[in-house]
C-alpha cells in the first residue's frame, strides 16, 4: 500500500498536524513491536477522541487503507506489525481514567492508560485490576484487552477477558457502538464483548473500556521453594492444587533463569537449584497459616530443597522484582531472545519441559523455562544472537517444534500472547478447517474490507 499525498493530508487534517508523524526517522520507531518482525508504516496518527477515530476509520474504509492499532508496542506475537503498510493508529494519547465506581467495582478508562498507572491509581483505595502481564509498567490496557493478556495472578483470578464488562468500539466502517456496559452480566443475544477481547485489533478499535476491579484480599503470604529439577517442581505444582488450594500465583523458573535473575537482582537465589517455585496465597489471615503448612508439606513430599516464607513486604517485593525482570535479565547471556507462549494441561508440564530441554540440546540453543505453572502456561525463552543468520533459522525451527509439542500434549499454541503474525502459520495445526473457516467468516462479518490489522490471526486477504 502506498498512500497518496491527498490521503495523507486528509488523515493529518483529522487529528491535526501535532498528532501525526510522517518523517522516515519517526516512522522507523513504529515498524516493530517486541518480536523480531518488522513492518512498513506510512503514517502514524495519535488520535485523542473517539470521534477522530471514527472519522479516520470512515476514510480508511472508503479508501481501503490498512489500519494497525497500537498501544505501547509490547506485543509478543507480531500483532501490531504494520506489514501491509497504511496507518498506525497509536492510542497512547487516549490515556485518561474516565470514571471510578467503587461501589459497583467498575472503572472506565481510555485504551492508552498504562496497566501500572491504573494499579497505582487503585491501590491506595484498596482495589486492583487483576491482569498483571510482565510488561505492566509499559503496556496499555487497550493492548491488554486486544491481546487478552494474562499474568501471574491468572491462576486464581482469571485473564483480561474475565474483567472486561463493556467496550466502546469503532467498527471498520467508522460506526461507534457500545457493547455491554457496567453491569456484571451482559444480556445481549451474543457475547460480543468477550469476542472482542483477544481479537488483536482485527474486529474493531476500542475507545473506552469498562473494566471490573477487585478489592485487595485481607492478607497474603509469599513462598519460595527450590527443587533439584524442573520435573520435581512441576509435580509439586499439581500436588498443591490437588490438596484443595488454589494459590493466587504459582510461578516456575529453571536453573538458567534463576541465574539470570540472580545476576541482575542479587537477592540470594540458590544458583545451584534446578528449579524454583514462587507461590502466593491470599485470603483471610486466619486461613493462610494452614495453607502455607500444606504447601510446605507437599513441596517436601516432592523433594524440595529449601522452603521459605517471605517475612516482610520488602522481601516479597524483591522476589517479585526477580520474577518480573528475568525476561530482560537474559540479555546478559545472549543479545537476543525469542519468548514463546504455549499452554498444556497442568499434568503435562514435566513432559513439555523435557521436550524443551531436548530441543535445546538438539539445536544447541540455550532455552530458559519460565512458567505460570499453575495454569500450565509456559514461556520458554530461546536465547540467541540475531546477527547470526544460522541461529535465527534455528530459532524459528525451535518455535515450531515447541508449538507442535504443546499440541501433541493436548495444549494450545498461545496461552496469553495471541496469534498475530508469528503464530498464524501454526493455527491450522490446532483447529480443523471448519473452525478456521468460521474464524475467517467472523473476521469478514466485522471487517468486510479486511482493513483492520489485516490478515493477523487468520489470512483472509
Amino acid at each position, binding site marked *: 500500500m502506498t498512500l497518496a499525498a491527498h490521503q495523507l493530508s486528509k488523515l493529518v487534517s483529522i487529528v491535526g498536524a501535532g498528532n501525526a508523524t510522517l518523517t522516515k526517522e519517526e516512522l522507523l520507531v513504529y515498524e516493530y513491536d517486541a518480536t523480531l518482525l518488522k513492518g512498513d508504516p506510512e503514517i502514524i496518527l495519535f488520535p485523542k477522541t473517539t470521534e477522530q477515530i471514527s472519522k479516520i476509520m470512515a476514510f480508511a474504509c472508503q479508501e481501503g487503507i490498512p489500519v494497525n492499532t497500537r498501544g505501547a508496542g509490547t506485543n509478543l506475537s507480531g500483532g501490531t506489525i504494520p506489514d501491509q503498510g497504511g496507518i498506525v493508529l497509536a492510542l497512547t494519547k487516549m490515556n485518561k481514567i474516565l470514571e471510578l465506581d467503587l461501589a459497583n467495582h467498575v472503572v472506565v478508562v481510555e485504551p492508552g492508560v498504562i496497566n501500572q498507572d491504573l494499579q497505582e491509581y487503585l491501590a491506595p483505595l484498596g482495589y486492583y485490576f487483576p491482569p498483571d502481564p510482565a510488561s505492566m509498567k509499559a503496556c496499555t490496557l487497550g493492548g491488554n484487552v486486544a491481546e487478552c493478556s494474562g499474568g501471574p495472578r491468572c491462576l486464581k483470578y482469571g485473564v483480561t477477558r474475565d474483567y472486561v464488562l463493556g467496550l466502546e468500539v469503532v467498527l471498520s466502517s467508522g460506526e461507534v457502538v457500545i457493547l455491554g456496559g457496567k453491569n*456484571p452480566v451482559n444480556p*445481549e443475544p*451474543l457475547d460480543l464483548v468477550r469476542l472482542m477481547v483477544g481479537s488483536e485489533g482485527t474486529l474493531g478499535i476500542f475507545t473506552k473500556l469498562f473494566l471490573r476491579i477487585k478489592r485487595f484480599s485481607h492478607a497474603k503470604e509469599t513462598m519460595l521453594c527450590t527443587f533439584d529439577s524442573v520435573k520435581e517442581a512441576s509435580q509439586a505444582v499439581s500436588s498443591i*492444587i490437588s490438596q484443595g488450594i488454589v494459590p493466587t500465583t504459582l510461578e516456575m523458573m529453571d536453573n538458567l533463569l534463576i541465574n539470570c535473575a540472580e545476576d541482575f537482582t542479587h537477592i540470594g537465589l540458590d544458583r545451584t537449584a534446578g528449579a524454583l517455585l514462587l507461590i502466593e496465597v491470599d485470603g483471610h489471615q486466619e486461613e493462610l497459616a494452614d495453607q502455607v503448612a500444606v504447601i510446605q508439606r507437599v513441596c517436601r513430599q516432592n523433594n524440595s530443597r529449601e522452603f521459605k516464607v517471605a517475612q516482610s513486604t520488602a522481601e516479597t517485593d524483591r522476589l517479585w522484582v526477580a520474577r518480573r525482570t528475568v525476561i530482560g535479565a537474559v540479555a546478559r547471556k545472549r543479545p537476543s531472545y525469542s519468548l514463546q507462549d504455549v499452554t498444556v494441561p497442568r499434568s503435562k508440564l514435566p513432559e513439555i519441559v523435557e521436550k524443551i530441554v531436548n530441543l535445546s540440546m538438539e539445536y544447541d540453543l540455550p532455552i530458559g523455562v519460565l512458567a505460570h505453572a499453575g495454569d500450565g502456561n509456559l514461556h520458554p525463552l530461546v536465547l540467541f544472537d540475531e546477527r547470526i543468520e544460522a541461529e535465527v533459522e534455528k530459532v524459528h525451527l525451535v518455535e515450531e517444534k515447541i508449538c507442535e509439542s504443546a499440541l501433541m500434549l493436548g495444549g494450545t499454541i498461545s496461552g*496469553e500472547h495471541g496469534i498475530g503474525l508469528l503464530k498464524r502459520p501454526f493455527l491450522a495445526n490446532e483447529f480443523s478447517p471448519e473452525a478456521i473457516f468460521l474464524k475467517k*467468516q*467472523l473476521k*469478514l*462479518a466485522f471487517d468486510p474490507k479486511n482493513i483492520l490489522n489485516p490478515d493477523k490471526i487468520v489470512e483472509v486477504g
Partner: protein
Amino acid sequence: MENYQQPAPTDFTQLQSLIVESHQMGQKILLKENLFPSHSLPDSSDLFLDLSHLNHIIDLDQENFTVTAAGGINFFALQNQLRDKGFFLPLDNYFSPQTSLTYQLSQALPSSYQGKYGSLRQYVTGLEVILPDGTVINLGGKCIKNVSGYDLMGLLIGSKERLGLISKATLRLLPVPEASQVICARFDSLTAAVTAASQLLLNGSIPAKIQVLNASLASAVNGLVFPAKPLLIAEFDGFKPAMPKEIQFFKKIISDYSNDITEITNPLEIAKLWLELGNTISQAAAKSPSKLLFTSQLTDLSGLSTELIQLAVLEKHPLGILIDLGNSSGLLLPLAEEQSPGWDWLSQAENVIHQTLNCRLFGMKTFHNAEINHIFQNLLVAFERRGNIDLSCPPAQ
C-alpha cells in the same frame, strides 16, 4: 407439551443426523427445556431435542481438575457426582435441577456463584459443537488459558442454539471448599433486605451466594418453615479457620436491619434449601410464560426492589421476586397460574426496568444497533454454512 416433536437421540450420530434432517427441512432446533422456562410460547413446528440419553461423564481428569461430559447430563446431577468425588463446579442458577448441561451452556444464565467464583464462561475450557449442517467442530481442550484466535467458545456459549448445538463440554473444576455455612435473615421489607445485603457486599464481604426473596416467594418454598417475611439467604464457604470471622462480619452488618437470623451448617440441609428454592422457581416458571429476568448494578438494586414490591402489591395473586446480589440480576414471576384480569403486571414491571438506569432485560432477540445486527446476521449465515456472508455495507441507522 405433547403436541411438540421431542426426539431423544441415544447417541451422538443420531443427534447429528437429527440436526442435519431438521436443517434440511428448515425446521428450527431447540432444546426440550425451552418448553418450560421459555419467555414465549414455542412454535409447534420447531423440533425440541431431548438429550437426556446423552447423560454420561466422559472423562473426569482428577490431575488436571477438568470434567468432560455429554451435553444431556442433568446439570444438578453432574454437580452432585463431582461433589461426591471432591470436585466443585461453582455454577448454579434457578433452573439447574431441571436442565441439562447443554441448556445451561446454551442459555448462559447468570450464576449465583458469580460474585465469588466468576461466570459460566470462565469454567468452560472445551466444547464439541454440531453446526446446523451437521459439521462437528472441536474447540479448546483441558487448558485453562487459551488465546488462539477468536473466542468461538465464548460466542457459542449463550447463543441459544442459534449458531450450533453444544454436544459435549469440558469444564474446569475446583476443589470442594473445606467448609460452608448458610445464614438466613428475615426482614420487615424487601427493600431493607436488599439494602442490608448490598451493605454487606459494599463492606467487602464475599459470600459464595447471596439472594433476597420477597415474602411471597419465601413462603412458597417447600421446607422453609420461616414466617412469611422477606428473606436474605447467604452462603459462605472456604477454609474452616476463616468461617467464624465471615459469619461474625455478616451479623455485625445485618444487625442494623434485622436480628431475626438462622444459621444452617449441615451440608445436607444447605443442599436441600437451594434445591427447594430452585424447584419452587422452576415449577412457577413452567406454569407461566410471563416472567422477567433482568440485570442491573449492585447500587441500583435497592431502589429497584422498592419499585417492584410496590408493583407486586397491586397484583392480587402472588408474585415472586428474587434478587441475586452475587451477580446483580433478578427474577420476577407469578406464583399462581391465575393473574388479575385487566391488570398487566408484566408491562408495568418492564416499564420499571426500562426506566431504571443500567437495568436491562434478558431475552433480547436482536441488538439495538443496526450495524451490529447486520454482523449478527452474517454470523448466523457463517455458522449455518449457508455460503458466503454478505460483505456489503450494513443498513444505515
